[in-house]
């Protein structure tokens, strides 16, 4: 008798109570931290406790650091919120990077070209409109082709990233300061024209508030609105959607325009709100990280707060590690990778049940 079936039996679970699934995720993160600690010791010889303490210190070591951490959190969360509706629709948009960047570019264009022509409030409104429109356009193009001809959106949006980058590079040279330098520097540093106002005396508060509102909005939009339902149905089956009277093409385009516009808004917040400049790397890969944030949170805006916090703290801590221990900064990418792998892998144990196979045969 051959006995070649695997030792484990895997079966799909019924839905787990939320506390169990959280416990599984918690264990995964703990395990990940242990592995990170081991890897840290092996690769660098540093005491992992110190490393983690330093990461924490890097993120929350002073009031200023905490503010910066929350600002970074807000930006990453905002971009993650932006990509979420499209993902719920199973539209694999990996173009948030470009959509945000083009928003930055539009904002910068307004700030540079209109600074002395418009009063500040109007300038900000014009920048807002431009950023939203630019982001929306970057979302619209892949969606339009997807809706009309089912053009692969993953590749399309990826290419749009590069096109946005090169456009930004082009305009950076056109607007470079000083001549030949290939960079813009702080825009309107003297006049602060087009800069978003500082609220509550805290430079970064405005961004945080905007994203907080956005989070609530997105939560309600996805779960309680008709649009949210349409998105879910289109994501499942386009034929079912048209059967239900949902205009599929319109929903795809509308959702991506929304995604893109929110990305554009994040671009505005970056360029007019915090950074006041335009560089090709201003988004810094957050468009890609956002995909992971959104997915790990199962597209739930509230949980996304925590997933983005995790990644932001790791990233912020990394620069602290590298200056404290003289470690190469890429080390944080390795740690981030390890933690992500564990979280990604832990989903399996939430969806499936693994049991040891009883020795199979013979009862009767």
């Amino acid at each position, binding site marked *: 008798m051959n006995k070649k079936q695997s030792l484990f039996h895997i079966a799909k679970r019924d839905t787990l109570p939320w506390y169990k699934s959280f416990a599984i995720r918690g264990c995964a993160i703990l395990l990940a931290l242990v592995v990170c600690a081991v890897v840290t010791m092996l690769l660098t010889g540093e005491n992992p406790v110190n490393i983690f303490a330093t990461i924490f210190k890097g993120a929350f070591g002073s009031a200023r650091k905490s503010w910066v951490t929350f600002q970074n959190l807000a930006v990453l969360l905002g971009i993650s919120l932006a990509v979420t509706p499209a993902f719920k629709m199973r539209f694999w948009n*990996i173009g948030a990077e470009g959509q945000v960047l083009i928003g930055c570019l539009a904002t910068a264009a307004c700030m540079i070209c209109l600074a002395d022509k418009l009063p500040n409030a109007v300038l900000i409104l014009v920048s807002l409109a431009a950023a939203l429109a630019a982001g929306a356009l970057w979302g619209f193009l892949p969606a339009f082709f997807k809706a009309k001809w089912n053009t692969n959106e993953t590749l399309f949006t990826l290419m749009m990233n590069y096109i946005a980058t090169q456009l930004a590079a082009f305009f950076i040279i056109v607007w470079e300061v000083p001549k030949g330098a290939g960079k813009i520097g702080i825009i309107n540093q003297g006049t602060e024209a087009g800069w978003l106002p500082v609220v509550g005396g805290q430079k970064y508060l405005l961004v945080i508030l905007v994203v907080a509102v956005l989070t609530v909005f997105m939560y309600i939009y996805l779960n309680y609105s008709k649009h949210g339902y349409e998105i879910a149905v289109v994501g499942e089956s386009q034929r079912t959607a048209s059967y239900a009277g949902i205009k599929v093409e319109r929903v795809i385009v509308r959702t991506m325009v929304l995604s893109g516009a929110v990305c554009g808004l994040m671009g505005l917040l970056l360029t007019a709100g915090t950074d006041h400049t335009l560089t090709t790397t201003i988004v810094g890969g957050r468009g890609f990280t956002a995909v992971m944030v959104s997915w790990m949170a199962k597209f739930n805006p509230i949980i996304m707060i925590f997933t983005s916090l995790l990644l932001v703290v790791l990233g912020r801590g990394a620069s602290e590690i590298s200056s404290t221990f003289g470690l190469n900064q890429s*080390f944080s990418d390795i740690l981030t990778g390890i933690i992500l792998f564990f979280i990604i892998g832990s989903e399996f144990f939430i969806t499936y049940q693994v049991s040891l196979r009883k020795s199979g045969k013979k009862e009767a």
Partner: protein
Amino acid sequence: MFFDFASFLPRAVMQGIPLLYGSTGEILTEKSGNLNLGIPGIMYVGGICGVVGAFFYEQAVPAAEMNGILAIGIPMVCSLLGSLLMGLLYCLLTVTLRANQNVTGLAMTTFGVGIGNFFGGSLIKLTGSEVPSIALSTTSAYFSKSLPFAAKCGWFGQIFLSYGFLAYLAILLALLASYFLKHTRPGLHLRAVGESASTADAAGINVTKYKYLATCIGSMIAGLGGLYYVMDYASGVWSNNAFGDRGWLAIALVIFTIWRPNVSVLASILFGGFYILYLYIPTGTNLAIKELYKMLPYVVTLAVLIIVSLRKKREDQPPASLGLSFFREER
């Protein structure tokens, strides 16, 4: 001045080879239904592992006593092992644990680029050289050795014979992969797995095995692209981030060539050409325009993407179960 094709073409080929490795690897992977967005990371890992291997060999043995077979063999084996591990990691997560492929891939890219730059950076520190790069000139000399009579054959030699062996290996692998997919039984089975894993499973094909094998072999091939880049193209000099975004271009090529490795041979060279064309185009000191020319490969990819989707040919579509994980007891 005219457009100097004989000098441009070999440069385009050299740009194209890493892309060809990447796309061949990714095509094999995608044919099994795995969309591996971790290829950019894997190519970094392939590169750095080769560098690490070569580094320790060069450290251990004085240049004069180095053995050609070992000088090529050690980095290659290290590179293959490194990317194999990455492939295994991807499979463990997406095939065994059925994790979302897009997310796993993106995480692998973060991780792989991190590994490359971390170890690259650490080795650079170890060497303590004045300019921060690891120069494996001796190893590189073995890798980039071109055919001895290439120089004597004028433009013909320059265009066709002037490359290191990894360049020819890339083309060979692409053609082999193409034959494998089209004309062999495992190739047929692999395609079936990518089209409909449950159908393949019901036909008695070991879906898990095929997914693992295709993905791991694909990763190893892609990793060679990284190796080629440092050892041949970059003359044995590892610099952090120098490999850039080529991994993403390789993924773009997969769709560009509608999943055909043999088409990828020419398409990679075309892309390689686009990648550096801006340096050959008359822009002079107008650097802004140069930035626009750099868009070329991406715009062309978009154009092809749109044209292919307009044609709506069934055979031009991605493997039907690309990106989906397979669970036999799933309804």
